[in-house]
């Protein structure tokens, strides 16, 4: 059983507590869903359970956390890790070994278990989580969902009875999320306690015994209804005008021989459309974008963007903007101001800085270094920096990944505004809610467009 009583915690060098007066009781075998916006203290709460607080982070704490009768601050993390397993958001940074089965053994080896027992635990974990067929694979070649399952197996092998998940599905596609849901069900039926922190929580509501809403470090008693009100209101839109701005005819592409990634893709997109592209990882979304941008050249078929036939990237700079999934790979400058001016400066164009600072509500920190902003703000900055080049077409590769509802709403609102101004916006996403925003929905499956639906 987990008991948290009047618990308050502040990080070192911080005056504002990250958690305030938390009271929470979790019975063995319960499934707890924790939700709340970025910075509300969700991850901090998990760190207080697995011992990273105070052992690694330090800081000041008062009140009490008790897990099966002991306090995490009195036990070293390696002892706690036998009882509590933690799976983090980014599957990449929790895998240490080159071979999948070696990684599952990693934790057990650290627990100094004898060899025979490690082998037994490793094999049973691989079997239970459904990874036996991938045990000999190289870890960096696994898909996101497979990596996350590997991370779960590795924790499972250490034999904890309490599982903490810190936004584990952020980087997963629809199929990965379904697999994850199955694993959660299995862990729950085996009587494990599960604490899950998530932004996209809808699918997990049916499993949860209790939902905890954290707001600014406090548990909020408000009902879930209030959260659903945060859901996006539909927005009035002007009808798109009729020029085709993008025209793809019979696009075929393969990276390796006989392994088509895109097959016979035909697509016309009109000016002012807001197109959501859905599909699992590996369905060809990113490849399609790369072909549109001239980063890859199709093996068969014809690409027309504006009036250019098969344009190269250099033809499109300044006319087409592209946003990568990870904002940190596209922020180069020393301040927010310089970052926005970076693109226009390279193209020797003038830029109306205030307009873009306003758009993202960045006036307050225009002089700050981009890397000191929060993840959601960095994502917004990366987008605004691309908009400053005034492209006619904006393509975004999973822009909503890892954003909480507030930032997510902000971003989609900007995209919507752009589309109403006659810009063409194409974005890929795993989030089904995007449907409420887009004017058109494309579904890619194994390199083919299987659904093409005009929504408004």
């Amino acid at each position, binding site marked *: 059983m987990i008991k948290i009583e009047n618990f308050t915690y502040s990080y070192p060098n911080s005056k504002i507590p990250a958690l305030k007066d938390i009271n929470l009781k979790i019975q063995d075998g319960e499934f707890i869903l924790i939700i709340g916006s970025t910075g509300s203290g969700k991850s901090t709460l998990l760190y207080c359970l697995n011992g990273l607080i105070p052992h690694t982070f330090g800081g000041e704490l008062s009140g009490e956390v008790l897990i099966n009768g002991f306090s995490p601050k009195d036990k070293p993390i390696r002892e706690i890790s036998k009882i509590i397993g933690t799976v983090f958001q980014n599957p990449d940074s929790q895998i*240490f070994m080159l071979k999948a089965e070696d990684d599952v053994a990693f934790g057990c080896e650290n627990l100094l278990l004898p060899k025979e027992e490690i082998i037994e635990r490793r094999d049973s974990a691989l079997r239970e989580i459904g990874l036996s067929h991938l045990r000999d694979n190289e870890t960096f070649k696994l898909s996101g969902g497979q990596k996350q399952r590997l991370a779960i197996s590795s924790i499972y092998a250490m034999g904890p009875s309490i599982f903490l998940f810190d936004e584990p599905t952020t980087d997963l596609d629809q199929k990965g999320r379904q697999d994850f849901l199955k694993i959660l069900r299995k862990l729950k039926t085996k009587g494990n306690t599960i604490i899950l922190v998530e932004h996209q929580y809808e699918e997990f509501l049916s499993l949860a015994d209790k939902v905890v809403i954290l707001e600014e470090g406090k548990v909020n008693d408000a009902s879930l209804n209030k959260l659903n009100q945060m859901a996006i209101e539909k927005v009035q839109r002007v009808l798109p005008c009729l020029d085709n701005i993008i025209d793809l005819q019979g696009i075929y592409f393969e990276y390796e021989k006989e392994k088509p990634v895109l097959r016979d893709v035909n697509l016309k997109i009109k000016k002012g459309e807001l197109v959501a592209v859905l599909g699992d990882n590996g369905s060809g979304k990113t490849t399609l974008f790369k072909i549109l941008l001239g980063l890859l050249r199709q093996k068969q078929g014809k690409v027309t963007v504006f009036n250019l036939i098969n344009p190269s990237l250099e033809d499109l700079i300044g006319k087409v903007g592209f946003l990568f999934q990870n904002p940190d790979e596209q922020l*180069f400058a020393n301040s927010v101001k310089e970052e926005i001016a970076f693109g226009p400066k390279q193209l020797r164009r003038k830029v109306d800085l205030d307009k873009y600072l306003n758009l993202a509500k960045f006036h307050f920190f225009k002089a700050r270094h981009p890397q000191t902003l929060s993840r959601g703000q960095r994502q917004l900055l990366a987008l605004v920096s691309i908009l400053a080049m005034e492209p006619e077409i904006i393509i975004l590769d999973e822009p909503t990944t890892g954003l909480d509802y507030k930032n997510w709403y902000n971003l989609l609102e900007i995209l919507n505004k752009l589309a109403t101004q006659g810009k063409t916006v194409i974005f890929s996403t795993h989030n089904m809610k995007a449907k409420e925003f887009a004017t058109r929905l494309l579904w890619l499956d194994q390199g083919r467009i299987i659904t093409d639906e005009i929504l408004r």
Partner: protein
Amino acid sequence: MRYLDKDTIFHWLDPRTKIFLSLACACLIVILDKPMSLLVLFITILFGFILLKPPFSYVKLATYLMAIAFVATIISQGLFYYFEPKTPLVTILPAEFGLLGRITGGIYLYKEGLIYGAVQSMRLFSAMLLGMIIVMTTYPSELILGLNRLGVSERVGFMLTVSIRFLPALVEEAKRILIAQRLRGLRLKGISGAFKGFCFLLLPLIIDSLRSARRIALAAEVRAFSGKRTSVKSLKFSLLDWVTFVITSLIIILAIKYRFNL
């Protein structure tokens, strides 16, 4: 250059034997001084390389590296050979040629220098090829386990594993950053442009690496990593390892005996 999943005699060897072999090779390179004996060493190792049947791209890489090393050593030794006697083959700059000739004392390509260069490059090739063989036949985690058993600490081993594991991800990330730069209209012209582009690449790369280093550290911690570990893998010195060990030792002893006339 990566591990090849095959079943050859080199794959059967214990990683410790391979570490010993590379040390032995380093010794032999220094001890042997006759062109003939160095050639024999090189051919033996080359034979091993061929026995592995590496993919064509690796053969190409090895040939390319050897060609560069060969040309560079031969030319530099041919030009700057200073032992006597020496026979000039080609005169590049005569000693009587103006100020430059008087300062340099003339620039010639010497015959003895070329031969010496060829011998030197045999040494380089031997070390290079053996290194490639070891990389191709040893799983990284086993090599690290071998190092551990020889007394290198767990922490160093862990650092090595993690860096090997994350290298491909880093390369991918660098590629994406470069594309993002091009998309923002950055054009690199000349040396100063290349330098500037390099800075723009380095900054996001370092910051992102630091962020993931922090995440990795937390993940390692909740998996009870503390520097002390048991291992699911065990290393066993087989008969083959002992035979290799004894033969290699004998060769080194013989080499020392003949070199120093003991």
